[in-house]
């Protein structure tokens, strides 16, 4: 007990640069420990409240800067597609639509892939293969987004334009759906969704891998004992057990996709238009801010960009809240 107190006191002394109490003196030690406890608890409270305060200040600062545009355009700011800096009229609907669609598309592509990778690595892969593959997948998260953008522009987009898009549209006859119709320019919502899928894949797979590894052995053994095949064990015993964690991983990937700027800007074609086809160019909120912020002309233009930022914050916040709720729901069901 005294040992702990002395250590706390020494720590507090360092932290607060208060005079370090002499070690042998018992009374000093006690005083020191009392101060230490308080300094410690107050600094913990301080650090813990720093994050919410920071978030709140960001919200308020962006909201205040966005207010002139929101007041001028009202609700039409989020419903209008007319973004015209010359006429000083701003409507962000295409950017909001683009952010949501490109992110959802990314999740639709990335989730099955990431789950497959994670299940393979945690359940099937021989040990010698596990580490190298896991490492490579994780490495995808470390590639800077501008590299993805350049690669996308010079490798992915030409392949999409000359092979993938005509294949989907004509060979598979998916062109009858509006989603896959129209001219294949290359830079498009589809290209942006695909690059986002690659970018959020490592997040989903890393979390899923960890969650699967945390499923108790007894869970698997019990299922095996009931005569389940290997596939049934994974489907009926392992994945349901890990479900809330997997959803958490998917939402982490979604958060990444919503805010991604550079790579998307280079691939989406930056067009203020809501098009039915995924092959058509689009826009995202993050790209819009990145493109126009440095050369915004006039206060209203600047404020409109801040309003886009505010909507993006709000969307991210809502998506995260929904994810939390979903995780909580699935955890409770079990």
């Amino acid at each position, binding site marked *: 007990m005294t040992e702990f107190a002395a250590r706390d006191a020494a720590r507090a002394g360092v932290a607060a640069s*208060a005079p370090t109490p002499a070690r042998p003196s018992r009374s000093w030690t006690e005083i020191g420990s009392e101060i230490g406890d308080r300094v410690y608890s107050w600094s913990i409270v301080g650090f813990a409240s720093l994050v919410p305060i920071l978030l709140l200040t960001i919200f308020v600062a962006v909201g205040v800067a966005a207010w002139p545009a929101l007041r001028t355009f009202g609700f039409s700011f989020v419903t209008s597609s007319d973004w015209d800096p010359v006429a000083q009229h701003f409507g962000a609907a295409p950017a909001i639509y683009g952010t949501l669609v490109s992110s959802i598309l990314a999740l639709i592509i990335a989730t099955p892939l990431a789950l497959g990778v994670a299940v393979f690595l945690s359940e099937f892969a021989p040990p010698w293969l596990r580490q190298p593959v896991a490492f490579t997948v994780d490495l995808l998260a470390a590639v800077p987004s501008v590299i993805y953008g350049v690669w996308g522009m010079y490798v992915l987009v030409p392949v999409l334009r000359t092979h993938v898009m005509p294949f989907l549209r004509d060979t598979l006859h998916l062109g009858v759906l509006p989603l896959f119709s129209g001219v294949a320019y290359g830079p498009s919502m589809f290209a942006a969704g695909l690059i986002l899928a690659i970018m959020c894949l490592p997040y989903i797979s890393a979390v899923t891998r960890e969650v699967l590894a945390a499923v108790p052995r007894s869970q698997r053994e019990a299922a095996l004992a009931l005569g389940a095949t290997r596939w049934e064990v994974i489907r009926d015993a392992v994945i349901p057990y890990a479900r809330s964690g997997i959803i958490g991983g998917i939402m982490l990937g979604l958060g990444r996709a919503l805010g991604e700027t550079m790579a998307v800007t280079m691939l989406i074609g930056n067009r203020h238009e809501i098009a039915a086809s995924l092959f058509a*160019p689009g826009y995202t909120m993050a790209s819009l801010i*990145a493109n126009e912020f*440095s*050369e915004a002309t006039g206060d209203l233009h600047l404020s409109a960009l801040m309003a886009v930022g505010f909507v993006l914050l709000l969307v991210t916040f809502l998506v995260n809240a929904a994810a939390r709720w979903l995780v909580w729901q699935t955890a409770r069901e079990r």
Partner: protein
Amino acid sequence: MNTRLRMLATGGFLLASVAGLAGAQGTTDGADLTGAGATFPYPIYSKWFADYAAKTGVKINYQSIGSGGGIRQLSEQTVDFGASDAPMSDDEMSKAKGGQVLHFPTVLGAVVLTYNVPEIMRPLRLTGEAVADIFLGQITKWNDAKIAALNPGVKLPASDIIVAHRSDGSGTSYIFTDFLTVVSPAWASGPGKGKDVKWPVGLGGKGNEGVTGIVKQTPGAIGYVELAYAKQNKLPYAQVRNAAGQFVAPTIESVTAAAAGAAKALPPTTDFRVSIVNAPGKEAYPISSFTWILVYANQSDATKGKKLVDFLRWAFNSGEAAASSLDYAPLPASMVSMLDKRLTQVKLGTVGMAK
């Protein structure tokens, strides 16, 4: 006592962080003058600053944050001079906190049309109206009669025209849309001119490299980029018909010729906030523009003001020679004396004489 200790500790921590912040802000490392603004002239400006520092010891720190940022920082008086590819509007001028702002043209830039049509063997010829119609989405095929009439003997493909434009706000877009506004009534009443406009058709690429990327990757694409960028990357570019009816290729000489043609028409009282698109003159390339350094007419700090004026005088008289080596068009000789005279209007050390 506990409370006091705690306050002391917190206070010390706060002081330390404030000191840290203050330290981090002093990044000008003893520069004599600071400026901020356009990215387009940054290579030539940094060469000028280096040459000038070697010659006189006057250090100039320049941040190429974009024209809009340059104007904003000058207005807030956080820099000694600004730089912009588009002249300040009357509204922006009236908001500048340091009073009247003078515009000094430094070098010239031009915007070229680059395209990806492998079938076209010799430089494409275009008129302003044809360019406007393409960017308005009214000409959609390469073998359109309007393009064919300008290019007799050239076999044009029947493929779609894919338009590429800048997605980021930029002086390049300003010069290009300024030109389209002058030559095409339909463009003037439609998208208009600006660093960002509402493009009727096309794909947006970020920066010259983004537009170039789209054009290079997409057969049938046409886009616009800066002359210097196009030259350095050996992109093919179109000849554009000028006001005198000649098809002119963008070169350093033809851009300087545009400025010379426009300068002849300038009144002696000009504030140099002039557009030189579609300038008169047989050799003039029509999509040309000045880029400007922005300086307050009343320099409250006489020492800094003198350094700034001396630098600008040196740049006009000695610096211009270096421009063409970096693919910028220098000012025509006829303008240098006009600008020297204009420099004498900068008042030094008149504190509180704003407006």
